[in-house]
């Protein structure tokens, strides 16, 4: 079919018209030769020719695409028809748009986070090396472990070890000292992750050995911000912790790391070392063709070899080495949340489809007469069906476009409230677009619903019982009984589904509020925190750290507005260490140690800064330093668990026995018991904790610590903590010899971030619940409104027989509320069954929380009441005379 033929047809038709005229003229001339009048000649010419119009029509039709013409005509009619019933059209569009938009937005975000592969090249062959224990996989690695793994050339193409850079590093040697995030990596790191090198090179093998010199690779961010994007920086030196470091390369912009990184420094590990300290995490790339099973089998053999070399205790009993796909490891077990999300999405979709179906059925019912008339005049079944189909399609597509807009806005909104805790959201934030698959899926489902429920009445209407329909008294005398039942059933199911969604949302809202009410055991208001990097050579022994802490604490406390200040190597709700310990003089039985607890090294001002209550004994003072006897303060949970019948203050404990030479120290006297703190997470019970003075840490431990954690400063202020930020920073600068602080956050912010994921879940489910509620309300309104309209005649008769306006209103409302109540009951049943899946998200709230299960039905009933009120009012405004006369 030549397209040009189609576009040319108007011109060709004009041409043909002229041609025909020319033909007729010639034939008239020929006829005139017989000597007759010109009119007679004309008439005969006409006869011989035939009907010019028919000829033109034939040629026209031959040149056109009939289906296209008819479709265009149907489209115009559909648009007019939809415009004539604006209420229906707007509501249907809204329902479709909300259903499609909400689902698309949420799914796009979740898909970008959970389902999209990592941005590294060939991400499915990247694996995380772990220690497999009976409590799950544990990602840390020590040097001997990494050394052994590096030897497994048969399964790994590359393998790299790196730390997390939490310790920070100080950029010195200029008048803007800055604290930077640096991670130490082994040489293959860049090749492993396919990091794009935009200037210079990465580390050589020689540079990654214990005496490899001071070299560094810059990140794109640091390069741009601090060095203005000058490519000449390669080959120059920068000063870190007072030492010159040669810049050998710069990494490009699109390289994403787990934690933000300013520069990379070679690990320079001595692979023959026997240091058992777990400081690193290792990632490898499997050789092509090696499966996870093969890799895991090989690593089990390696674990046996490890035990033979380092002893049976070097690995936990029943534990070994293993690999886990990196993406799965980073994202964590998202299976349950994903299922819950899918469930919610499904519900919203079902509600939307039920709504659209309802609206379409009602509309088709109202148009029964119109369709019957068209059929009577001569429209074929195919034509009628096609026309109704185009109407549904138009609606669906328009709704889809609106849904796209809502989805787009929704994605922006969701990203804005992102707490920063959800993995990989920041990585993809600028590029989270609408996920095409889910959009197509949702659009497809809506289209299908539209077609199905638009088609059924169409098919029914085109069947030839025209006489009955045409003879019906009035289009307002009632509705088809069966269709009415279907619509009622749809509304009931909508209300039920909406109830389930809203109950889920309520449970999560209550969870979130309960979390907010939890007392973490320490003060979070008006408490400021910041980090200082002590990884430099200056701080590799305890004495200078102790002095820094003492001076810093004194100076900061002197700042007006500051109530108390302290320091620690961990921050509650953010980071923490754990250690094993033995109670001196207590038999251990079979286990290698008495127990384990959280482990903090703190300054003397720590407890007062956080207002952690002292329950017995005393806390640390300035006198607890390296020259005085070792002391330790324990938390109440620790006291209760390990001294159920005795007095901890009478005992001494040995911390870190068997953890390595760096931790060797004499036993410490328990001098005090403090209140419990929830230091891991707000929704976890308080752990047993032990605190030692920073000034009393063994030198080896300080050195290790300085590479792994920064020094946290905690400052409690009288008023808004940020108001005294500048003088506090200045005081710390003076005390530390010009070290810069970073990660300035209030403790409130830290606590908020701790429960950020729960907040995110709550917001998500609330969005779904609200959408579901809205659509259910629309559904109830739509059905009752339509029903009232159809029963105008009945209303009129009732009024004529003496019913008052109030009676009519109550009648309509009663029927509407009956539907709603049925839905609520069904929904409660479903909710009882389904909320168990939410159990893992809840805190302080049972899955069958009575408040939620009572309040939500009330909420839904009130919304339903509102939704039937308006049509009920309309019923009362029926004028009986007009209603009875209506045909």
């Amino acid at each position, binding site marked *: 079919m*030549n397209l040009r033929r189609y576009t040319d047809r108007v011109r060709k038709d004009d041409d043909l018209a002229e*041609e025909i005229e*020319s033909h007729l003229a010639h*034939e008239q001339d020929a006829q005139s030769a017989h000597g007759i009048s010109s009119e007679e000649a004309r008439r005969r010419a006409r006869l*011989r020719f*035939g009907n010019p119009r028919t*000829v033109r029509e*034939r040629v026209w039709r031959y040149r056109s695409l009939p289906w296209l013409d008819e479709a265009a005509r149907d489209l115009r009619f559909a648009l007019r028809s939809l415009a004539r019933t604006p209420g229906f059209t707007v509501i249907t569009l809204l329902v479709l748009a909300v259903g499609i938009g909400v689902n698309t937005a949420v799914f796009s975000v979740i898909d970008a986070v959970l389902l999209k592969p990592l941005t590294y090249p060939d991400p499915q062959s990247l694996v995380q090396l772990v220690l497999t224990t009976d409590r799950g996989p544990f990602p840390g690695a020590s040097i001997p472990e990494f050394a052994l793994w590096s030897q497994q050339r048969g399964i790994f193409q590359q393998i790299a070890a790196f730390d997390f850079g939490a310790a920070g590093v100080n950029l010195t040697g200029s008048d803007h000292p800055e604290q930077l995030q640096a991670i130490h990596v082994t040489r293959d790191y860049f090749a492993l992750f396919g990091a794009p090198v935009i200037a210079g090179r990465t580390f050589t093998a020689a540079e990654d050995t214990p005496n490899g010199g001071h070299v560094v690779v810059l990140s794109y961010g640091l390069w741009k911000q601090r060095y203005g994007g000058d490519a000449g920086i390669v080959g120059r030196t920068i000063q870190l912790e007072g030492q010159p470091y040669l810049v050998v390369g710069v990494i490009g912009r699109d390289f994403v790391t787990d934690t933000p990184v300013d520069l990379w420094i070679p690990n320079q590990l001595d692979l023959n070392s026997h240091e058992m300290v777990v400081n690193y995490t290792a990632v490898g790339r499997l050789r092509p063709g090696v499966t996870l099973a093969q890799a895991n089998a090989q690593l089990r053999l390696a674990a046996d070899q490890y035990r033979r070399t380092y002893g049976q205790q070097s690995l936990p009993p029943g534990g070994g080495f293993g690999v886990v796909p990196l993406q799965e490891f980073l994202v964590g077990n998202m299976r349950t949340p994903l299922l819950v999300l899918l469930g919610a999405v499904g519900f919203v979709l079902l509600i939307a489809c039920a709504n659209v179906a309802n609206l379409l059925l009602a509309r088709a019912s109202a148009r029964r007469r119109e369709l019957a008339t068209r*059929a009577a005049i001569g429209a074929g079944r195919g034509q009628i069906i096609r026309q109704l189909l185009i109407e549904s399609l138009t609606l669906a597509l328009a709704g889809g476009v609106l849904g796209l807009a809502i989805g787009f806005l929704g994605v922006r909104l969701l990203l804005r409230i992102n707490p920063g805790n959800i993995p990989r959201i920041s990585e993809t934030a600028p590029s989270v677009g609408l996920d095409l698959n889910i959009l197509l899926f949702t659009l497809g489902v809506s289209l299908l619903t539209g077609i199905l429920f638009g088609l059924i009445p169409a098919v029914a209407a085109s069947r030839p019982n025209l006489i009955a329909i045409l003879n019906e008294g009035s289009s307002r005398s009632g509705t088809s009984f069966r269709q009415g039942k279907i619509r009622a059933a749809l509304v009931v199911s909508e209300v039920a589904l909406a109830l389930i969604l809203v109950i889920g949302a309520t449970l999560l809202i209550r969870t979130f509020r309960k979390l907010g009410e939890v007392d973490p055991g320490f003060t979070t208001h008006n408490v400021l925190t910041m980090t200082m990097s002590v990884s430099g050579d200056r701080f590799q022994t305890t004495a200078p750290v102790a002095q820094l802490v003492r001076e810093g604490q004194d100076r900061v406390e002197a700042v007006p507005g500051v109530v108390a200040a302290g320091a620690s190597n961990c921050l509650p709700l953010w980071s923490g260490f754990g250690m094993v310990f033995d109670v001196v003089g207590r038999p251990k039985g079979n286990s290698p140690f008495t127990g384990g607890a959280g482990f903090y090294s703190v300054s003397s001002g720590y407890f007062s800064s956080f207002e952690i209550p002292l329950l017995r004994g005393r806390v640390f003072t300035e006198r607890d330093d390296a020259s005085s006897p070792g002391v330790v303060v324990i938390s109440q949970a620790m006291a209760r668990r390990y001294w159920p019948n005795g007095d901890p203050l009478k005992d001494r404990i040995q911390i870190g026995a068997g953890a390595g030479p760096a931790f060797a120290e004499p036993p410490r006297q328990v001098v005090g018991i403090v209140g419990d703190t929830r230091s891991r997470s707000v929704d976890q019970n308080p752990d047993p904790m032990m605190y030692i003075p920073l000034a009393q840490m063994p030198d080896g431990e300080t050195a290790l610590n300085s590479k792994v954690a920064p020094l946290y400063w905690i400052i409690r202020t009288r008023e808004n903590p940020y108001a005294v930020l500048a003088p506090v920073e200045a005081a710390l600068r003076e005390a530390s010899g010009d070290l810069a602080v970073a990660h300035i956050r209030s403790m409130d912010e830290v606590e908020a971030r701790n429960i950020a994921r729960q907040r995110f879940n709550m917001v998500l489910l609330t969005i779904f619940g609200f959408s579901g509620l809205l659509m259910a309300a629309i559904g109830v309104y739509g059905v009752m409104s339509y029903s009232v309209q159809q029963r105008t005649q009945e209303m009129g008769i009732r009024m004529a027989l003496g019913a008052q306006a109030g009676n009519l209103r109550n009648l309509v409302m009663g029927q509407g509320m009956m539907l709603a109540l049925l839905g609520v009951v069904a929904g409660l049943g479903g909710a009882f069954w389904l909320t168990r899946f939410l159990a893992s998200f809840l805190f302080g709230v049972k899955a069958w929380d009575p408040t939620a299960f009572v309040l939500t039905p009330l909420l839904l009933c009130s919304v339903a009441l509102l939704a039937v009120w308006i049509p009920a009012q309309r019923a009362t405004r029926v004028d009986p005379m007009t209603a009875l006369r209506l045909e």
Partner: protein
Amino acid sequence: MVLKRPPDAGDVLQGTLDMLILRTLVLGAAHGHTIAQAIEQTSGNALDVEQGSLYPALHRLEDRGWLASAWGVSENNRRAKYYRLTAKGRRELAAATGRWRRMTRAIDLILGPETE
């Protein structure tokens, strides 16, 4: 209850009409009216077709590239659209004639010689 189109008289003769038009134009270009007259006369008025049904055929043939058209002035001093055979049209005519002759000869053989 759908109205159906009555079958067109032109449909029946479409294939043959095409051939006749092509044959008529072998001798030179002509406009629609002339072609109609020529077909009537040379067939001895045995083929009685509405003159109008010529035009869909002409347009179709032109679209297929077998004819080319141009407006000109006729012998009666009127504007008329002249059609002429293209090279492609000539080839098609030869092929179609061959097919037709083969088919009629075959039917002839089957039917046997004409009896009185």
